[in-house]
């Protein structure tokens, strides 16, 4: 390749790295900028570095509680997905039963269903069930909305389990469920980890469901908390920046540590 075109390629790669990183860098700077330093321009390095923004949102704006709520909701939804989707994915990939095609089509249709299109009914249903303004009222529909993607991905993963393994277990007299737990689960562990990560990521990022379901300040997750903070003190930029970082730092760290698993999960659902 000629030198100029190679340099051009490098420039292209770097410009878009800048596009990805600049906004994050900007928030990091704003979060440790003291009030006195506020007007020295968005790109100047803040000095002195000031962590009072974090202290303020954590202790005074309820973010210590929002983190707990985000964790409860995300872990809850992820657990529900993990308890249901792998079983169903296995059945769709490896078992024969009446009505299989129809049920799978029903789940497949759910891949495109937007949360805003069901809230009109979901809101009344949750109210009737006494689940409005509870975290479980977010967890249940959240998990249900994640199921189509999860089942689709699990079916892809389960298809790679060798039939000989299943047959061998059957010959040994294992029931279907025993086979699943003792033979299938160990083989598909990486796929399960990918699914758990993605379910957690999507639950953590969800905004509309908790916005609609939860009114109580002490039950809100981080996404709703951060949006409320922006609306309420439209001028506390340091505070909002700190809030934003609290809202995305855990998931970014998780992604960087487990990048391979994330990538595998996202592309498995897509590429097939």
């Amino acid at each position, binding site marked *: 390749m000629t030198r100029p075109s190679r340099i051009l390629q490098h420039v292209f790669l770097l410009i878009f790295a800048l596009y990805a990183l600049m906004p994050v860098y900007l928030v990091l700077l704003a979060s440790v900028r003291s009030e006195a330093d506020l007007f020295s321009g968005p790109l100047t390095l803040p000095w002195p570095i000031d962590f009072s923004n974090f202290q303020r949102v954590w202790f005074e704006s309820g973010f210590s509680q929002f983190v707990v709520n985000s964790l409860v909701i995300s872990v809850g939804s992820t657990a529900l997905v993990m308890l249901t989707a792998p079983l169903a994915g296995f059945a769709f990939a490896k078992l024969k039963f009446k009505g299989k095609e129809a049920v799978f089509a029903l789940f497949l249709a759910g891949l495109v*269903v937007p949360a805003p299109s069901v809230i009109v009914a979901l809101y009344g249903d949750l109210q009737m069930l006494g689940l409005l303004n509870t975290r479980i009222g977010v967890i249940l529909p959240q998990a249900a909305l994640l199921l189509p993607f999860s089942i689709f991905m699990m079916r892809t993963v389960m298809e790679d389990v060798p039939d000989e393994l299943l047959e061998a277990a059957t010959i040994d007299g294992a029931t*279907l469920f025993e086979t699943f737990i003792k033979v299938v689960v160990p083989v598909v562990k990486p796929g399960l980890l990918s699914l758990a990560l993605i379910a957690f990521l999507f639950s953590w990022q969800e905004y509309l469901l908790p916005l609609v379901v939860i009114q109580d300040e002490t039950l809100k997750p981080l996404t709703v908390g951060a949006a409320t903070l922006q609306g309420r003190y439209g001028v506390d930029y340091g505070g909002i920046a700190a809030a934003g970082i609290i809202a995305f730092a855990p998931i970014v760290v998780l992604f960087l540590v487990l990048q391979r698993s994330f990538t595998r999960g996202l592309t498995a659902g897509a590429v097939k």
Partner: protein
Amino acid sequence: MYTSRQAWMFVLPALLLYAAFVAVPILQVAAYSLFSWDNGSIKAFSGLANYARLGTDGVFWTALGHNAIWAILTLCFPLLIGLILASILAERSPRVVKVMSAIYFLPRTIPLVVAGIIWGWIYNPIFGLLNYVLDLVGLGSWGGAWLAESGTALISLNVAGAWTFYGFCVLIYLSAIQSIDPSLYEAASLDGASWGQRFRFVTVPLLKSTTLFLGLYSAIEAMRFFDLVWVTTQGGPGYDTEVLTTHIYKTFFLVGDFGYAAALSVVLLVIVLTVGGLSYRILRQS
């Protein structure tokens, strides 16, 4: 061996959860749309009256237009960028690929709400980064209130949306390029093809089905997105960034017109299910 019933037990937990919180609510929404509502309770059966209102609801058509523009912008920008970045990266060492694709994908891990807040700042007319940088390079006169002006609001939001999406396109294209037979590239190189020619005549044609997938995926996402608009402009200024989901939300929670909100939801569902069904057919063929 197992019985059909035993197999069903594997599907049942997922099916119950899905039925209770997705499938049944969809049927309810469809039923609700056939009634007129008063203060949160059904008043009278009204047939298709709620749907008849769609024709004269200017906001609905504006919103639908914005969804369409959003889909087209997404096809032009994040998909193309993703394709080019992925084809450049494919020829780099695995280390570079790993680091760069992590960087490009990073914004996708940030909740859209937070992305909206951050980009709201970048576009802020007074202290925002964009106007600040334009000032620095002597283009201050190009600055503006990006999200508050009718001409720039939607496209500015789309740049923020693209920020969270192009990394996903890079990942998908990369894994597709890596599955292309390397001997095709070697043959092209031996024939003296330049990088641009290899891109144009090997990569692009062989990635047709990947592009199709991403295109259909982004068309569906363009119908579904909500968070980014809601935390930045709430559909404003005026109705300049109104989309179908924000129109539903407002009709339901702010106006309290359940019947019409349900009719709008059904329209949204019909559109995404149609595009989804088409996608499934097309992708299965290719």
